[in-house]
């Protein structure tokens, strides 16, 4: 009995000290002088632009990664082809690689003298612009949908798909009517994780964006720039916006997690 409570309070205390206390402090500092200064800070044109940019990047990166993630998961689980093992390993690369490395590699590829650096001369601006930031975000948030969908595809097996086939369903009908409904919660869960990662990304985007105020500044970059400029109210208020988005994400995640034992 005692051991059970010790474990429970130990775990809660650990989480409170390491997670809740710092995040709670941000909330406290943001609203320490009342609601209005914080509201004014997050509704400044620069802050709104950063929020807008962050949402645009997520709105492009998340659907692409979802589509690609589902296709890749099906390829990895349902098909045998040369290089499958390698592909499976490469998918995890963004999880293992520091975002700074991702940013620098994109910088090398698209920068002046890089293999694709010539694109800038043709009017296609990748670095220090939206396309580069989207590429960096896609890179770092790529594995989540794949990693959520793969185990579910394995678990449901091929029986239902084959049954549908014998009943006359063409491959795409089988995917739409049988496979997709079976993996839908995993896809939702993957989308939520991808969104969280896309919105919070700092390192890679920081390098490829060039951090041009009011132009290529996402919300996390805005927080950093305000903090460095001693505008703590602005930094903390933006932090609260990020934290609220994260909170909404976590809640969405809980909603999408299938109940134990449910089919």
């Amino acid at each position, binding site marked *: 009995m005692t051991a059970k409570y010790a474990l429970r309070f130990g775990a809660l205390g650990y989480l409170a000290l390491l997670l809740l206390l710092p995040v709670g402090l941000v909330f406290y500092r943001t609203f320490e002088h009342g609601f209005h200064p914080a509201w004014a800070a997050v509704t400044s044109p620069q802050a709104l632009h950063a929020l807008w940019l962050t949402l645009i990047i997520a709105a492009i990166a998340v659907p692409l990664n979802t589509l690609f993630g589902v296709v890749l998961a099906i390829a990895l689980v349902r098909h045998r082809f040369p290089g499958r093992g390698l592909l499976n390993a490469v998918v995890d690369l963004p999880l293992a690689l520091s975002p700074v490395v991702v940013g620098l590699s994109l910088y090398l590829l698209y920068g002046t003298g890089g293999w694709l650096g010539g694109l800038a001369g043709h009017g296609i601006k990748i670095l220090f612009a939206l396309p580069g930031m989207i590429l960096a975000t896609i890179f770092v948030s790529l594995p989540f949908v794949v990693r959520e969908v793969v185990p579910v595809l394995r678990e449901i097996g091929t*029986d*239902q798909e*084959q*049954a549908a*086939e*014998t*009943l*006359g*369903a063409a491959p795409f009908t089988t995917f739409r009517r049988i496979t997709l409904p079976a993996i839908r919660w995993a896809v939702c869960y993957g989308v939520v994780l991808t969104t969280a990662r896309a919105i919070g990304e700092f390192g890679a985007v920081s390098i490829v964006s060039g951090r041009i105020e009011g132009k290529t500044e996402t919300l996390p970059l805005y927080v950093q720039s305000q903090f460095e400029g001693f505008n703590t109210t602005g930094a903390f208020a933006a932090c609260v916006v990020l934290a609220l988005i994260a909170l909404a994400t976590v809640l969405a995640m809980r909603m999408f997690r299938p109940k134990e034992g449910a*089919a």
Partner: protein
Amino acid sequence: MGITVVEVSKKFGEFVALDDVSVAIPEGSLTALLGPSGSGKSTLLRVIAGLEEPDGGQVLLGDDDVTHQPARARGIGMVFQHYAAFKHMTVWENVAFGLKVRKRPKPEIEHRVHELLGLVQLEGLAKRFPAQLSGGQRQRMALARALAVDPEVLLLDEPFGALDARVRKELRAWLRRLHDEVHVTTIIVTHDQEEAMEVAGQIVVINHGRVEQVGTPRELYDSPANEFVMSFVGPVNKIGDTFVRPRDISLSPEPDGDGAEAMVERVVHLGFEVRAELVRDDGQHLLAQLTQDEAQALELEPGMIVYAKPSRHTVFTR
């Protein structure tokens, strides 16, 4: 529609699943593919279904060569061992799936699904999900789903394998009656010789990817083509090179010429049938099958000495 399999081979890596298999399944028959696990019987069924492409050979449905046609174009109905129920659909939607995919008019679908749910005795459960059904109900749903599209051929892959013994027996009898009603050419894959004999009119015995024998249950039991079939379709005593069915061993309490002396080790009562395990004085073990009356007349009990004589035996020349 009859099914003809001509010289079909299939390998999985180095493993030979089917080795030059030829079988003819008559139209309207109920045929069992019988063999131990890994014998290739399921692979043969999946080749016929179009879920597995053979390395060589042909599959004909009626007169059509369907070897390279996908499963969806073959007009078959298939039932899987683990039901393969569409978990996110109700019983009704499961059964209607094939008709909806074929874009049949709604009233026709309504009518057909209703009719089939009646046939498989699931009328009251149309709105349930598969997770809310028992194993036997799920398998009946799977059968209705397969029958909904009016298949030319019905293929059952160990359909009762995941069910408990009592439900299995019920469903076998039910399948037999269903086949008498519907008359669709049916193949059932099983590793259970009793199931094959009870349900099927024709049995194809398969082992190591080859057809060992094709025949009626009676033919297989009474005149097995080889040692494998003999021992697979029923219990058997092997005495040197001769094979004797347990029911062909007659026991007498007194020496009667050529009967060999044996001691009763164990007596198993299975209702009408009684099995006696014997050991001869040369160490040979024997299994004898008697009726309850015979066992009573002999007053069989462990430790007793009897005289065992094969009334009929089989020798295979190699």
